[in-house]
């Protein structure tokens, strides 16, 4: 493929975090020996540090993404040998999100970095399937947000059109569609992020690409609206085009590191390989 995957500062970052959490793990050992069997093992304690520094969540985020991507990949290429059973591509989105959420809760990171799944109405109004947010302490207000829209392989999306899920008929969904009928889902999410500002990123998450159906990629930017200024239409082709312009792919951890270290107000556009 000729694509390289970067891991900026990964060792240094992981190691410093590892030792600090290791120390905390021992320092906070409870004295009572009751319920020993219910206590997590020392290894899980190491993996569940209280996220105290602003960017301590990044390696944990990486762990969550790793788990979610691996689980989703298990089903990415599923094909019924009898060609009768066609699970909705939406299932893949749900598998990814369920795995991510479960992991993030078990790693105790949601006070620093949370994930809000959108309601069916919000998915249409805002164009996002879920929104990640770096939270400010102690208010827990979002400081940085990443709105995520999942894109499936075109043939899967065609299959989805032929099997409209029941929720598509719900009143809420139809009202939401009416409210935002003149925009595509891509445009709605870009509009949503633009309305918030440069600290809100749009991430288009590709569960498989035509050229690599078994991996998960993303295009992230806080500057998609620049395309609108250039009269470019924001559609799938436009987003996929970003991969042609770059041979450099960030890791999820590298993506997050770039986001939190970026100068306020600056544009940032990245391509990421999540699996």
């Amino acid at each position, binding site marked *: 493929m000729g694509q390289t995957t970067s891991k900026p500062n990964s060792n240094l970052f992981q190691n410093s975090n590892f030792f600090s959490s290791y120390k905390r793990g021992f320092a906070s050992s409870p004295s009572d020996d009751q319920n020993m069997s219910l206590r997590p093992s020392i290894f899980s304690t190491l993996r569940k540090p209280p996220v105290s520094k602003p960017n301590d969540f990044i390696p944990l985020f990486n762990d969550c993404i790793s788990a979610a991507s691996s689980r989703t990949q298990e089903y990415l290429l599923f094909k019924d040998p009898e060609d009768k059973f066609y699970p909705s591509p939406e299932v893949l989105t749900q598998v990814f999100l369920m795995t991510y959420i479960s992991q993030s809760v078990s790693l105790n990171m949601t006070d620093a970095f949370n994930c*809000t799944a*959108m*309601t069916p*109405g*919000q998915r249409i*109004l*805002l164009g*996002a399937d879920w*929104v990640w947010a770096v939270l400010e302490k102690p208010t*827990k*207000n*979002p400081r940085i947000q990443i709105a995520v829209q999942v894109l499936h392989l075109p043939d899967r999306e065609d299959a989805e059109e032929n099997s409209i899920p029941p929720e598509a008929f*719900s*009143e*809420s969904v*139809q*009202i*939401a*569609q*009416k409210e935002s009928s003149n925009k595509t889902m891509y445009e709605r999410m870009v509009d*949503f992020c633009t*309305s*918030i*500002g440069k600290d*809100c990123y749009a991430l288009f998450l590709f569960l498989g690409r035509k050229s690599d159906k078994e991996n998960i990629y993303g295009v992230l930017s806080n500057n998609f609206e620049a395309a609108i200024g250039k009269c470019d239409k924001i559609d799938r082709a436009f987003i996929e085009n970003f991969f042609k312009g770059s041979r450099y792919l960030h890791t999820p951890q590298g993506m997050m590191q770039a986001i939190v270290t970026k100068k306020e107000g600056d544009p940032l556009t990245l391509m990421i390989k999540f699996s």
Partner: protein
Amino acid sequence: MRSGGGDSSQGQIQIEPRSSKQMAATQDVKGKGEGGDQNFDYMFKLLIIGNSSVGKTSFLFRYADDAFTSAFVSTVGIDFKVKTVYKNDKRIKLQIWDTAGQERYRTITTAYYRGAMGFILMYDITNEESFGAVQDWSTQIKTYSWDNAQVVLAGNKCDMEEERVVSVDNGRLLAEQLGFEFFETSAKDNINVKQTFERLVDLICDKMSESLDSDPAVPTGAPTAKLTDSAPPLQQSGCNC
């Protein structure tokens, strides 16, 4: 049985923008709005606004689903629920928009003010800052919505008496100054939740009646009887809704 379907441009009350000084309401007696259950006589678009964490989402959940959870989940951008109520045997579909209170979402939320017929402006009786922001929210309504939009001021979390920092009198006084109706409410204990919505719907109906009275070209009036959540047993004849 009411009929549904048909032209999407009909069946919803149309209000002219704030440039018009009069709320001009038109309606098709049998609601034929686009989307979902199309059996309604009127569609009212309502918004709940106010500072972050005053309890807007909980208030809506209590009203629409009769549910409450103390876990705080900050609303992202905007969301909505739909609830149908009955007044004088007419079905009124309430499209209730729940807005995020944080400043970062202000561009999105104010975009939904246009076309709203009623607002519930909420503060938290245990949070002075949220009460102090009421004036600003009121200005937002005046700036972005119709002239004739109706507003009810709601002092939420009145179950937390021990932590109260805004007195009932101060809440009432501010509401009078702003020309709003006033309730103290609790989504948690289900106090005055339904009443707040009912009053807002009444105010909208009254305003519609005024407009219709002053515009003889409009054939029918607004519903005037008490609201209920259940469908009327029989279709009454001669209803002047």
